[in-house]
Every structure is written in structure tokens, then in C-alpha cells.
């Protein structure tokens, strides 16, 4: 509204007086009526359209006002045409200036466009959900500390759906794997089992077929599936006859009823969506609140009203189920925030950083324009003297700036084309929708817009200045050689100091991130991620009952594969991200016993996993004391356990943990003797701390969901197909759930950090180069302006070094002030970044010192060339030039 009011202010007076208020009320009325139905994108378009229409109106009225008669209108248009011609000629006559200006602008615009295209793809484009703005994600939070459980339990979700008035749909989704048997072989397909109302709540659209019918959410009638658009393309060859086809899933016939719209991958990418009937065990598991829950606001209800109602419902649920629902609260998060909340801040920080790069570029162009306008003051003055008014001079400069801006935009878009490719190679898988990263119309409009705005902004300051200079002043100075004046000089000085400060600030930020990244990569993971392949299998027999005898046979088969050095098995792989490999480490109460019996037995939580005898070797985890599990562990032999270092240190402080006993409250484990201690591992990559862990032997506690770890001699990724074939040879019914190199899993945990660090480094490099160009340009210009003075100094016996010192002194002064201002600003930025740092303090003085020194050095180096040129001036040359 404020932008509109501002624009209306530019309407010609009579029109504004007559229609201004009415226009404002019309837009207000329209906005009030349209707002509730519009998403973020729709709202933006609404205002863009209103603004453009007003701008068009302004131009139309201006053109009309310029001349009621056709001739005067034609003259004005011819004037602009002449300006364009004149400006083009002027720009081409100074190819050096034009090239540097266009190049500088192009670099800034290219970087900004690249970053904006990422922001556009991730944050701005509409989500592939109908009415996405009304979709909420519900999760249970603990009233004591606000930690989220990640979802709701089926029973709580059902009860909330039954009593809410503010939500039209509430539904859950359960992560599931369906084994699809094709040609006698089984493959695992990721599936979301969803409760009634899920598709309506999420706003999923259908590409083909129909959604689920209400009676398909009953046990026995639930053998129907929807395909994701992607699996329809890849698995079923985009065949529309797939509707009605029968597939054998988990050994049972299922019917394909529909294909979801392209891009719909919610709660995450999957091949199938199936109905989830209410289960007999839902009520027992009321306390296990991990099912992804989605809800849709009823028409006309806003989020705060829904949250208020949910607070009441949560209190009711806590009262009626005091044990399972102790400390229960339910939080509703808008879908967009749920999907993008984590990445919005870093992404916007990067956009801010690149905007600073653009600002430096604009400052450079402004500096160039200032230098030029000093030279052109004569021309402007002559024009004024001949009757051109300020408006005409401004129009001329405006036209020229727009032309420069367009040049910068063309170059910028070209550079952004490569930049986008570069961003893709950084593989920012943490950014949703990034596949859609492209230079679309929105992005193009954006870059042309910012290029022209920056160029005009850069040209305006010098133009206003030039237009203000009285013709007499300018003309009386005669030749432009001595002009330029003190004022233009000091403005350029300030611009260059600003550039140095901004470049320093970006470099400090990049430096801090690089140092953090370095520290992080230096951390010991406790295992070897390189050259390892992780393969997860959930094993079932012909009747779809968990099957246990598959694994020992499979391990033997895999060991026999060429290229495989070692094979191990675990129920919980470190680095498992749940997107591919599911981690099943269970927090389990453990009682430890002090051998002396001096302290009472105490229960603690440790993460429990089951491993086989080959696991430590295959993962490269060290056995610190005692022994690894081996063939002595059999189902009927005495039950034993291993612990990790942290567990031993915290819970078994006696001299030797080996031989002590731990009491596991899990299955029928009971008291286990500790036989060995494994080195600590970081379970969630570099940034996570080791936690107390306890291991049992798979021979004694078998389970059916396990991950093979293969230590390979060659590229582990290339082994995937051979491993699949080999497992099918053992048992064709068994499906691989996921196969990923362990290093790739690790990559997932550092990807976002690497992405931020790499981009910020590129941006700071750009800013430094631009600032260096700025310093060079300024010094070269001032040397050129003072050639005569230098010549006289030389003629009067001034030494080469004196002149060199004079130039360098000025450059050092500029650089010092710029660095000082930049350092002060960097302190604030470092504080903002503190959440992204690792292993260093925000005020990491070595970074500050190194960056400040480098920046100073770069500034002096940039000033050196012009300074040397000054010393080469022959006294006679300079004087003769007059």
C-alpha cells in the first residue's frame, strides 16, 4: 500500500486530486476481498500488477501533458531517440569506460541473479499443493522443554480429528516399505501409508485416476495404491493404462487407482501412497508420537484460532490419558515454514551477501560515472547554457545509465547461466525444489530490473551533481583537465572506502566459515566413511513374517564378491539420515553395577544396537579394550555386550570395564557381561557428539532390519548392482531397501555447510576483485588529473620516490579507513554468524587479522600501477599537455 501511495504521488496534479483517493480505496477494497484467497506468490503478483498499471498511467498522463498537440509529443519521443543515439555513441567512444562498467555490473548482476534463482526455486515458487497456505503440520511438543517429537501418535491424531472445528482435515502418514515383486525378484519401494483425509489435507492433485475412497481405509479393503508421478514415469513407462493394474506388493495383490500430480512428494519423496486403516494397536501406542501429521484449516479460520483450539484439545488429551500424554502440547506450523524453516535464514544471508557484492559493483560504476561526469561537466554546462534544463540533462544521463544497465543485464544473465550450473554441481540436496533451479521469466525480470536500477542509481548521483554546477563555473574552468574538483574527488574517496569495507566484511564472514569447515573436517569420526557401502535390507519370509536366517548366508555371499575386503552387519548405522538408511538405535534404560557394591544401582539411557562380529573391521572402528564379538557368541551361550568409550567413561568408571555387568531393560536381555569397548563414533556426522552406546551380538539378539557394511577395494558406489544380484542369488524374495556409499551419507550432513561456505567464498572473492578495480580506477583517475602537478614537481626536482610516496600515501589512507570501518562492521556480522560457526569464536582474531592485512595489501597493490605511471611522467610532456 505504501509503495502504491508513493507511486500515486507521481501522478499529475489534476488527475491525483480528482482520482487519487478513489484509486486508493478501490485498491484497498480489492485487496481486502482478494487477500484471503491468495498465496504469497499471488499476493506479490497482485501488487506488481497494481504498481505496473499505475506506472503505465503515470507515463500515459505525462506523455499527454507534454503536448496536447501531436508535434510536441513527437518531438519528445524524437528527443529520447536522439538521446539514445547520442548515449550509444558516447559509450562506444569510450570503450574502456563502457567495458569496465558493463563488466562490473555484469559480475554483480550475474552473482545476484544466480543466488536469486536459488531463492526463487526454493522459497518463492508456489508449492505443488492446492491451497498450500492453509496446510499445517502438527507435532507434539513437550511442555517442559519445548522439544518436538516430530509428529503425533495415530490415536491422538484421530481424537483431534474427531473433535476439532477449526481444522477441516487431520491425517497422519506412516513411513513404510512395500516390496514390489516384478519378474520374480523383489525391490523395495518407499511408501507412505496415509489415513483418511490426508490427500485433502495436503491438497494433493491427481494426474490420473482417482484418490482413495472412504471405505478403502478399512482393514482388508486397503489394497490400493497411488503412484507418484516420478515412479509412474520411471517404473511404469508413463503408461496411462496403469490405472486398474494389479501389482504384487508384500506378497498381496494391490490395485493402482491413480497417479499423483508431478512434483508432489509429501511428506517426502516416495514411490507409492497407500491407505492406512486404523490399527488395533493405535491406542496402546498413544505415547509414541512420531507419525507425520498434516492438517488443513477450515475455510475462514486463521492459524492462531486453530492453535488456540489445539491448546484446548491437547489439555483435554493430557487429562484423559495422563500417562501416555504427560506434558502434551500440540504445535501447528505452516507447511512452508515446516519445509523451509531451516534453510530460509542461511539462504537469505547468502542473498544479502550477494546484494553487497552488487552494491560494491554499483559503487564502482558510480565511481566511474563520477570520474566521467567531472570530465563532462563542460558538455553539460554547454548544454545548459544553450537552453537545456536540468530535466533534459537528467534524461540524457538516465538514458545512458539504462543502456549501461541493459548491457550489464545481458552479461549478468550470461554469467548467471554458468553460475546456476556451478550451484548445481555443489549439489545442494538440502534445498528442496532445487531441481527446479533455472533462469525463468521471474529471474530474468529480476536481473534486468536490478541491473537497470543499479546503473541508474550509480549514474544519478553524478548527474545531479553535474546538473547543479552552474554553466559559468564549469565553462570558466575551461578545459576539463583541471576540473573534477574537490567535491567529486571526496565522493569517489568515500565510495572506494565503502567498497573496501564491504569486501572486508564479506571476506571475514567467508573466512570464519572456511575456518569452521576446516575445524569440522579435522574432527575424528571414529570410523572410516571412505570406501564403504551401506546396504539395508528388511528381510521377510514367504508369509511376510520377519525372517532371520537370511543374513548369515548373505554375509558369506557378499564376502565372496570380488573387491570386497570385509563385511559387517548392524541394526543402527552411524550417519543414517532416515531418508535412505533408517537408523534403529533405540534409547534403552541400562542399569550398571559398581563391582564393589558401594553405590546403588542406577538406570541410565544408552543407545542400543545389535552388531555382528565383522562390524568393527568393516566400519574401521577400533576395539579399545577387551575383544570384539566372535564365534563364541551363540544363541544359547551366555549373553554378553560391548559398550563404547563414552558409556565406559560415564557409567563404568572402575579401572577395567571388561568383565563388569550391565542390566538391559530390553526384550529378555537381563544382565550382560561386558566383553569389550569400542571407540566412540559421531552418530550424526562431524557436528554431533558421541553418546553412550551399548552393543549386543546379532547371534544372540537377531533382528530382521539390518544394514550391511561392505569395505571395498574400489569405488563402493559401483558395487551396488553386484551386491543386489548377489543378495537375490541368496534369496530372490529379499529386497534391498537402500544402498548408499557411507561417504555419501556423510556428505549429506556437511552439504549445507559446504554450500554456504563455497558460495560465500566466491562472493567475497568477487567483492575483493571489484574493490581492487575500484581502488585502481580511483588512483589512475586522480593520477591522470594531477599529471600536470606531477610534471611540475618533477620539473622542480621532485624525486621519483616522492611522487610514488604521494600516491601511495593517499591510497593507504583510503585503505586504512576502509579496513577500519570494515572491521567494525565485521564484528557485528561475526556475531550474526555465530550459529554457523564450529570450533572457533565469532571474534576469531586470526581471521580478522589475516583478512584485514590482505585487504590492505590488495588495496595498495591496486594503487601501485597508477603510482608507477605517475613516476614515469616526463616533466615536459605534462606541461605541454596544457
Amino acid at each position, binding site marked *: 500500500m505504501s509503495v502504491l501511495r508513493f507511486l500515486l504521488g507521481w501522478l499529475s496534479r489534476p488527475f491525483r486530486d480528482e*482520482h487519487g483517493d*478513489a484509486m486508493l*480505496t*478501490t485498491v484497498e*477494497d*480489492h485487496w481486502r476481498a482478494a487477500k484471503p484467497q491468495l498465496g504469497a506468490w499471488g499476493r506479490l503478483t497482485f501488487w506488481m500488477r497494481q504498481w505496473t498499471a499505475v506506472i503505465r498511467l503515470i507515463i500515459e498522463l505525462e506523455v499527454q501533458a507534454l503536448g496536447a498537440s501531436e508535434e510536441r509529443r513527437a518531438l519528445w519521443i524524437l528527443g529520447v531517440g536522439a538521446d539514445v543515439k547520442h548515449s550509444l555513441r558516447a559509450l562506444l567512444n569510450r570503450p574502456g569506460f563502457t567495458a569496465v562498467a558493463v563488466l562490473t555490473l555484469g559480475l554483480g548482476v550475474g552473482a545476484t541473479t544466480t543466488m536469486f534463482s536459488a531463492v526463487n526455486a526454493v522459497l518463492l515458487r508456489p508449492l505443488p499443493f492446492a491451497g498450500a497456505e492453509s496446510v499445517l503440520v502438527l507435532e507434539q511438543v513437550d511442555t517442559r522443554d519445548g522439544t518436538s517429537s516430530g509428529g503425533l501418535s495415530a490415536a491422538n491424531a484421530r481424537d483431534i480429528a474427531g473433535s476439532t472445528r477449526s481444522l477441516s482435515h487431520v491425517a497422519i502418514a506412516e513411513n513404510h516399505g512395500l516390496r514390489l515383486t516384478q519378474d520374480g525378484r523383489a525391490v523395495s519401494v518407499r511408501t507412505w501409508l496415509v489415513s483418511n483425509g490426508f490427500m485433502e489435507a495436503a491438497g494433493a492433485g491427481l494426474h490420473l485416476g482417482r484418490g482413495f475412497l472412504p471405505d478403502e481405509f478399512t482393514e482388508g479393503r486397503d489394497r490400493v495404491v497411488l503412484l507418484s508421478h516420478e515412479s509412474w514415469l520411471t517404473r511404469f513407462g508413463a503408461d496411462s493404462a496403469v490405472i486398474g493394474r494389479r501389482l504384487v506388493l508384500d506378497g498381496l495383490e494391490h490395485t493402482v487407482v491413480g497417479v499423483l500430480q508431478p512434483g508432489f512428494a509429501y511428506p517426502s519423496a516416495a514411490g507409492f501412497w497407500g491407505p492406512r486403516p486404523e490399527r488395533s494397536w493405535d491406542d496402546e501406542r498413544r505415547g509414541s508420537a512420531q507419525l507425520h501429521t498434516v492438517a488443513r484449516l477450515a475455510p475462514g479460520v486463521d492459524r492462531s484460532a486453530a492453535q488456540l483450539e489445539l491448546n484446548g484439545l491437547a489439555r483435554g488429551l493430557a487429562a484423559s490419558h495422563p500417562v501416555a500424554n504427560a506434558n502434551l502440547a500440540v504445535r501447528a506450523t505452516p507447511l512452508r515454514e515446516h519445509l523451509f524453516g531451516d534453510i530460509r535464514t542461511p539462504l537469505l544471508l547468502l542473498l544479502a551477501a550477494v546484494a553487497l557484492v552488487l552494491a560494491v559493483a554499483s559503487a564502482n560504476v558510480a565511481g566511474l560515472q563520477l570520474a566521467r561526469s567531472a570530465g563532462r561537466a563542460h558538455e553539460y554546462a554547454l548544454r545548459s547554457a544553450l537552453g537545456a534544463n536540468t530535466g533534459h540533462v537528467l534524461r540524457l544521463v538516465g538514458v545512458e545509465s539504462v543502456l549501461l544497465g541493459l548491457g550489464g543485464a545481458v552479461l549478468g544473465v550470461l554469467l548467471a547461466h554458468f553460475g546456476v550450473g556451478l550451484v548445481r554441481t555443489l549439489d545442494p540436496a538440502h534445498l528442496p525444489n532445487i531441481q527446479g533451479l533455472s533462469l525463468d521469466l521471474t529471474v530474468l525480470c529480476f536481473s534486468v530490473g536490478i541491473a537497470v536500477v543499479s546503473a541508474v542509481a550509480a549514474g544519478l548521483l553524478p548527474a545531479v551533481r553535474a546538473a547543479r554546477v552552474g554553466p559559468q563555473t564549469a565553462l570558466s574552468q575551461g578545459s576539463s583537465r583541471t576540473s573534477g574538483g574537490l567535491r567529486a574527488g571526496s565522493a569517489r574517496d568515500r565510495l572506494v572506502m565503502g567498497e573496501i569495507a564491504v569486501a572486508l566484511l564479506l571476506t571475514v564472514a567467508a573466512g570464519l566459515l572456511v575456518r569452521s569447515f576446516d575445524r569440522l573436517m579435522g574432527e575424528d569420526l571414529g570410523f572410516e566413511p571412505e570406501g564403504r557401502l551401506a546396504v539395508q535390507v528388511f528381510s521377510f519370509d514367504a508369509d511376510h513374517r520377519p525372517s532371520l536366517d537370511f543374513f548369515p548366508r548373505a554375509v558369506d555371499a557378499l564376502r565372496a564378491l570380488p573387491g570386497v575386503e570385509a563385511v559387517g552387519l548392524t541394526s543402527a548405522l552411524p550417519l543414517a539420515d532416515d531418508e535412505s538408511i533408517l537408523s534403529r538405535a533405540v534409547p534403552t534404560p541400562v542399569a550398571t553395577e559398581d563391582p564393589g557394591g558401594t553405590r546403588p544401582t542406577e538406570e541410565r539411557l544408552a543407545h542400543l544396537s545389535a552388531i555382528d562380529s565383522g562390524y568393527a573391521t568393516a566400519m574401521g572402528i577400533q576395539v579399545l579394550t577387551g575383544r570384539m564379538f566372535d564365534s563364541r557368541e551363540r544363541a544359547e551361550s551366555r549373553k554378553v555386550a560391548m559398550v563404547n568409550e563414552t558409556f565406559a567413561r560415564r557409567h563404568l568408571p572402575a579401572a577395567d570395564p571388561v568383565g563388569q555387568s550391565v542390566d538391559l531393560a530390553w526384550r529378555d536381555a537381563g544382565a550382560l557381561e561386558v566383553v569389550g569397548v569400542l571407540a566412540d563414533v559421531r552418530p550424526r556426522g562431524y557436528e554431533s557428539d558421541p553418546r553412550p552406546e551399548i552393543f549386543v551380538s546379532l547371534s544372540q539378539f537377531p533382528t530382521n532390519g539390518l544394514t550391511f557394511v561392505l569395505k571395498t577395494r574400489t569405488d563402493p558406489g559401483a558395487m551396488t548392482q553386484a551386491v543386489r544380484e548377489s543378495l537375490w542369488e541368496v534369496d530372490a524374495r529379499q529386497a534391498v531397501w537402500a544402498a548408499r556409499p557411507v561417504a555419501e551419507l556423510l556428505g549429506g550432513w556437511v552439504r549445507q555447510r559446504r554450500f554456504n561456505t563455497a558460495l560465500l567464498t566466491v562472493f567475497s572473492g568477487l567483492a575483493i576483485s571489484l574493490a581492487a578495480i575500484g581502488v585502481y580506477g580511483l588512483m589512475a583517475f586522480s593520477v591522470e588529473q594531477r599529471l600536470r602537478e606531477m610534471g611540475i614537481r618533477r620539473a622542480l626536482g621532485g624525486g621519483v620516490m616522492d611522487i610514488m610516496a604521494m600516491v601511495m600515501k593517499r591510497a593507504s589512507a583510503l585503505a586504512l579507513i576502509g579496513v577500519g570501518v570494515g572491521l567494525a562492521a565485521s564484528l557485528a556480522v561475526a556475531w550474526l554468524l555465530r550459529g554457523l560457526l564450529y570450533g572457533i569464536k565469532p571474534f576469531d582474531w586470526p581471521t580478522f587479522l589475516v583478512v584485514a592485512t590482505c585487504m590492505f595489501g590488495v588495496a595498495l597493490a591496486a594503487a601501485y600501477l597508477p603510482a608507477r605511471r605517475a613516476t614515469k611522467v616526463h616533466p615536459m610532456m605534462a606541461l605541454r599537455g596544457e
Partner: protein
Amino acid sequence: MKSHKRSDPDSAGPLTHVVYHILLALATGNRHGYGIVKHVSERTQGRLTLEAGTLYAAIKRMKDQEWIEEAPREAGADSRRRIYAITGLGRRVLLAESRRLEDLVQLAREASVLPG
């Protein structure tokens, strides 16, 4: 500008579609700015949504030509909302334009472009 005033309704066309839709909206009753926007948007199933800038550019031109005029406000109405009404001349222009369009459609039928 003055010379365009009170032009002969039969030679006023063809009208821009914005002008035509505004005249149509006002032909069925006096409306204020957003009233016109809403009516046009409803009648065209949202295919034509007028921005304030476009609307008032047209209103100014149509007022200059005296195709529409400002209607007296009802007592107690919001003073910022101006109500517009179609004039007799405006009705004749609308009628002339509608006839012209009808003739065009007739030609299309004769050429079997449209089903007759």
C-alpha cells in the same frame, strides 16, 4: 482533447475491451471503483481483473468524452468512494459497439467459423 468531446456514437468504436467492460458494468447499475472491478471479474470468470491504474485511466478518458459521469453520493456514504453512472451518450456508444460486435459474429457465422 476538446475536439474529441461528444463524438458521434456510431463512429466511436471499436472500443478497447477495458472500456467496453466498464460500460457494460455501469449499464446494469451505478457502481464505485471496486464495484466495477468486482463486476467485471465476476462476469468474465476472473479472466479480466482490472488494476486501479488501468481502471482510472479508462475512467478519465470516458469522463472526458462524457460517456460516464459521477453520480450523486448517497447520504452517509464514504466520501472517498466516487460512484459512476453511464450517460445517455455512453449507452448509445455501448449499443453501437455491441451492434458492431454482433455484425462481426454474424460474419463469422456466415463464414462457418462459428456454428450458425
